[in-house]
Each structure stands twice: as structure tokens, then as C-alpha cells.
């Protein structure tokens, strides 16, 4: 049962170029995928891939240029005003910068209580006991409620942010690089917490990150994005370890693994990630792809089933053969 369904989502930003020209940043282009209830869906990509923009569109922080988002069979994109605000409660978010996502002038307890008081119309006293419950659930002492964000560590701030997101009892959580700015040991704590919460509360996660090892540990399904489009989509380990798309393979091989014994052929991609202002014609990855051919410049590859995953590459099968030989 898919909880979230994204159909043809597109987001273009107008960019002012030069004196007269109007250019567009093609942040996300015609992206479609589904997320099952209770699963963790990983969205990976480098800068310019559009993964964060996609997350923001789903949360309706920014408006998609085209496409639809279906949440629980309800069209999110069509909602406005009051119905949007109430539906919002079912999709919450945890952001990358833990301290930045908390109001520096608000105590942690007040920040967590705010949605309770605004939406559920709780009194100060009622909210207080709920806040203590939420803090306990994320592994923090009740006295943290009195602290300001700058008095807390990164890990603690992130727990407060999680508690705040849980306050409205959402079913779906968008996690945008929630542990990128945290140390390894703190990351482990937060990741464990997120997994426990998912089990206890039946949450569904959209986990946006550039950290492939994290995604290989956490995610059930993965979508790999490049320059606004999905390059490959499928079960996490299938995509990451046995991916068919050249970009997926290059990406996976580029990630340093904390295991000195493993010798892997590393595919080092030449050049830079192109600008989203003028994405390459046809397949967007072709400018850096070692296997690019004429067809790649003329025809944009669509996602199709190749060896267990869905890949957007014209020559996926032959490339795979060549590489495994």
C-alpha cells in the first residue's frame, strides 16, 4: 500500500542571468516514485541533484511547477489554506542543521509545545506533560525543556527537533540530511533512535542524504538522482551494490569504505557536475559517462527494468556485461 506517490514532479526556478535574459534552473524534472507505508525510502544524490528540492515540494514548503503528489490517496498538490494546514500535520520533517532548525529565542520545551498549543488547543499545563513524554521518547531529560538551543549539543538539538516533529503525531517524516553535521558516535545514536521510533510508531521515512553507507544500512528502497532526474530506482542493496546505471556504479565506487582490505575498481568520473541552468540534452549524465554514445545525446532514457532495478540508461545491459567481464 503506497502511502506517498509522486507523479511527474517538476520544479523550475527562474534565474536572472545577465541583464535581460531569463534562465531557468531545472531543479527537479519529471520525477515519479512511490513509497510504501512503514518503509524507509532513501533519496541519494550529490549537489544539484534536486533531492532537497524534491523533499521541499513534498512538504509544500515550495510549490511544484508541475506534477502531483498523492498522500494516502489525497492530492496534496491541490490543497490550499485550511485543509493544507491540517494535512500538514501528517507529514513532518527533520532538517540538516539541528541548531538552525530551532528558534534561538525559544526554549526547547516551548518549541515542542507550540504545535500542541496551536493545533490541539492544549493549555500550558496539558502541553507540559506531553512535552515531557516526548522528550523521554527521544531519550532526553525533562529538564532539557528549559534550555535554549545554544545551550544544547548538536545531537540534543536534533532530538528536540524530532520530538517537535512527533508532537503532532505524523505518519510520514521527511528527513533531510538529519545526521550530516553530527559526529559518527552521535549519528549512531540518532539513527538508532529513528529506527526505534519507526518500529514503535509505524512511521514512514523519506531519507534524503548523500551518505551511501547510511542509506545502505537504513533504506528499504533507494532512488538515485542526478541533475533533477532519477537515474536508478529499486531495492536498496540491489541499487547500491548491484546497480546497473553507470552513475550509480561510479557513485558507489567513489565512496570511501572504512575497510582497508577491500580493493575495488574505482570509477573516477571526469569533469564537474553540469549546471542545472542548461542540463545536457538527452541523458543528463552523458557528459561524464565513460560509455556515452550518440543516442545518449539525442534521446532521454526512461526508467526501465534492468536486472532487478529500474534504470534510466539506454545501454545498461551491455555496460554491466562489460564491467563484470
Amino acid at each position: 500500500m503506497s502511502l506517498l506517490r509522486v507523479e511527474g514532479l517538476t520544479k523550475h526556478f527562474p534565474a536572472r542571468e545577465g541583464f535581460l535574459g531569463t534562465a531557468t534552473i531545472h531543479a527537479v524534472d519529471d520525477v515519479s516514485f512511490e513509497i510504501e507505508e512503514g518503509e524507509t525510502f532513501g533519496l541519494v544524490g550529490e549537489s544539484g541533484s534536486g533531492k532537497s528540492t524534491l523533499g521541499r515540494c513534498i512538504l509544500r514548503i515550495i510549490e511544484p511547477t508541475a506534477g502531483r503528489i498523492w498522500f494516502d490517496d489525497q492530492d496534496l498538490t491541490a490543497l490550499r489554506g485550511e485543509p493544507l494546514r491540517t494535512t500538514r500535520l501528517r507529514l513532518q520533517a527533520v532538517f540538516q542543521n539541528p541548531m538552525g532548525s530551532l528558534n534561538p529565542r525559544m526554549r526547547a520545551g516551548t518549541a515542542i509545545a507550540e504545535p500542541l498549543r496551536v493545533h490541539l488547543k492544549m493549555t500550558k499545563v496539558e502541553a507540559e506533560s506531553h512535552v515531557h513524554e516526548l522528550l523521554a521518547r527521544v531519550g532526553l531529560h525533562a529538564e532539557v525543556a528549559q534550555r535554549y538551543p545554544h545551550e544544547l549539543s548538536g545531537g540534543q538539538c536534533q532530538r528536540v527537533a524530532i520530538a517537535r516533529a512527533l508532537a503532532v503525531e505524523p505518519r510520514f517524516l521527511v528527513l533531510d540530511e538529519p545526521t550530516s553535521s553530527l559526529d559518527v558516535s552521535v549519528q549512531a545514536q540518532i539513527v538508532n533512535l529513528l529506527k526505534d521510533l519507526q518500529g514503535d510508531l509505524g512511521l514512514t521515512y523519506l531519507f534524503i542524504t548523500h551518505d551511501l553507507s547510511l542509506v545502505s544500512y537504513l533504506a528499504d528502497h533507494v532512488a538515485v538522482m542526478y541533475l533533477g532526474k532519477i537515474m536508478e530506482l529499486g531495492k536498496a542493496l540491489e541499487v547500491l551494490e548491484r546497480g546497473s546505471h553507470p552513475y550509480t556504479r561510479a557513485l558507489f565506487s567513489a565512496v570511501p569504505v572504512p575497510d582497508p582490505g577491500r580493493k575495488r575498481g574505482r570509477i573516477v568520473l571526469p569533469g564537474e557536475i553540469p549546471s542545472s541552468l542548461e542540463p545536457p540534452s538527452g541523458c543528463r549524465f552523458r557528459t561524464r559517462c565513460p560509455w556515452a554514445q550518440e543516442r545518449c545525446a539525442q534521446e532521454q532514457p526512461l526508467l526501465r527494468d534492468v536486472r532487478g532495478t529500474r534504470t534510466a540508461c539506454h545501454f545498461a545491459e551491455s555496460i554491466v556485461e562489460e564491467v563484470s567481464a
Partner: protein
Amino acid sequence: MKALLEVRDLSLDFETEGGVAKVLDRVSFTVSESEVFGLVGETGCGKTVTALAILRLLPSNAKIRGGNVVFLGEDLLLKSEAEMNRIRGIRISMVFQDPATSLNPVYPVGEQIARVVMVHEGVERGAAEERAIALFRRVGLPDPENLLRRYPHELSGGMQQRVMISMALACRPKLLIADEPTTAVDVTIQAQILDLLMELRREFKLSVLLITHNLGIVAETCDRIGVMYAGTMAEVASTQDLFREPLHPYTQSLLKALPRADARGHPLASIPGMVPSLLEPPTGCRYHPRCSFAMPTCSVRRPELLEHRASHAASCLLYEGVTQ
């Protein structure tokens, strides 16, 4: 292997308005010639401060309490500022984390690198620009002649970092200190930069002191690794030894906390508690409050960094024969 850089018992304090932060406590390690040495640790462990101490680039509220930094037989801590100026950029170079802030935004990049060569080697502009073009080519920058006139903001992160590397190597130093050189760039660019560093190290016969929090990077690029915790050196070993048989409990926990595909379905081993404040560090072993092997003596006696296996040192009382 001849020792190029030997840091011995380096101790350092920072005087802050909140008190005295004991930022480094008897840190020791050695970087040999043509070796890549990785300095790893989490926030607050002191790895960046160590690099700055080597180059004597510390802020005014930093006070060195003891130890030596011996480079090619001479103690850098005893040198005058003038003498250090002849070492920085020439014999020891540094590449920083965020190239966008390390490059001067108002000068073209060619200008910045040419100036380095002109100042340090007394070469004329024409010759300096030739050197710059050759260096740019060597670090894989496209169209070097035109690149000279570009400003930093016109280049991508990866290209900026290559410019930084070429500046650092302009005068052929013996030691390159790279502080989180790839944190600010994407994964695929990071692969390019690391490959480049390894190539250059072979060609220029450089030693590299690579500072990072990323254990994957050190596993793939370093010969030897030093693991730091809260201002102390917890363990020093060859890369193989460190990953295969980590001695220090902190190293062990750190490795177990890394998310990996084969750990799916199991909770990650997390280290309880938080990194301690350096204003009031724990007594004895600084790791003992979070250590699952802690004994009563650990809060009293500070462990020494000793070689408990061949070429493999750790600072932990467990290996000093202490049982309680």
C-alpha cells in the same frame, strides 16, 4: 623509514572567557618520509589545533604548555616568526577545508599562486606564471592559461580545491597538511581530489598529514593513522592494524558505530554520553566516563601512549597490566 615530523608530548591550552580549555594533552605521533598519515577524530578532539600548532598558526589565546614539534631535526616550537615564514608554504604547506574561504575573492587565482612563487623563490612574474600554468595542468585543471585570469567564485568547489592544492605544492614542500580537504565537495569530486593527492604524493615524494573525521577516507588513502579523542592521542597504528585489531576501546566503538550494509537490522553500536568539555576534562583517562571497560584506576591514572604491539601504540590502562 626516516622521520620527517615528530610530535612529542605536545600539550596546549586555550584561555577563554569561560576558563582554561586543555585542548591538547601530551599528543605524540610521527610522520615518516613519503608517508600519508591520517589524523582522525570527532569534533573537539584537537586534530585541527594540532595542525595549526605545527605551523605555529595558533590564535593569541593559545598557550603551549609543553612538548616538541621536530621537523627535519629542528624543533619548530623554538623558531622565530621570521624563521617560520621561511618554512610555511615552502617546506610545510597546508590545504584547508573550505577552499571558497581560503582563496582571496578579489584576486584572480593565477595572481594568487604566482605571488606565492614570486615571494618565496624570488622569481619574476613571467616565470612565476609559467610555473602556475604547469601546476594547474598537473592538478588536472582544464585550460590553465585562461584559468589564470579567473576569480575564485567563477570556479566550482572541486576546481577551487585543486587551485589550493597547486598553491600548496608550488614550492615543493616536504610535508603537506590537508585539513578536511574534501568535506566541502561532492562524493565524485572527492574521489578525484583524493586520487590527485595520492598521485602527487608519489610524484613529488611528499608526506601528507591528512586530517579528517571520515574513517573511509583514511582507510583508503593512509599508511598510518592516529586516532584522537578529546585532546589526547588514543591510538597510532598502520591502517591495516588499526582496522583489523583496534586496541583502544574508543577506536573499537567508533568502528562499530559506522553504518554498513552488513549491519542492517541491528542497532548501531553507539557510544553512551557526550564528548567532554575541555574546560573540565575527566581526570585520569579522558575517555573513561564513556568506556565500557573502565576500571577504578582509569579515573585516577592517565595512561601513556605505549607500543603494545609492533608499531602499534595505544593509551589505555588495559594494556598496561592494570586489572582494577
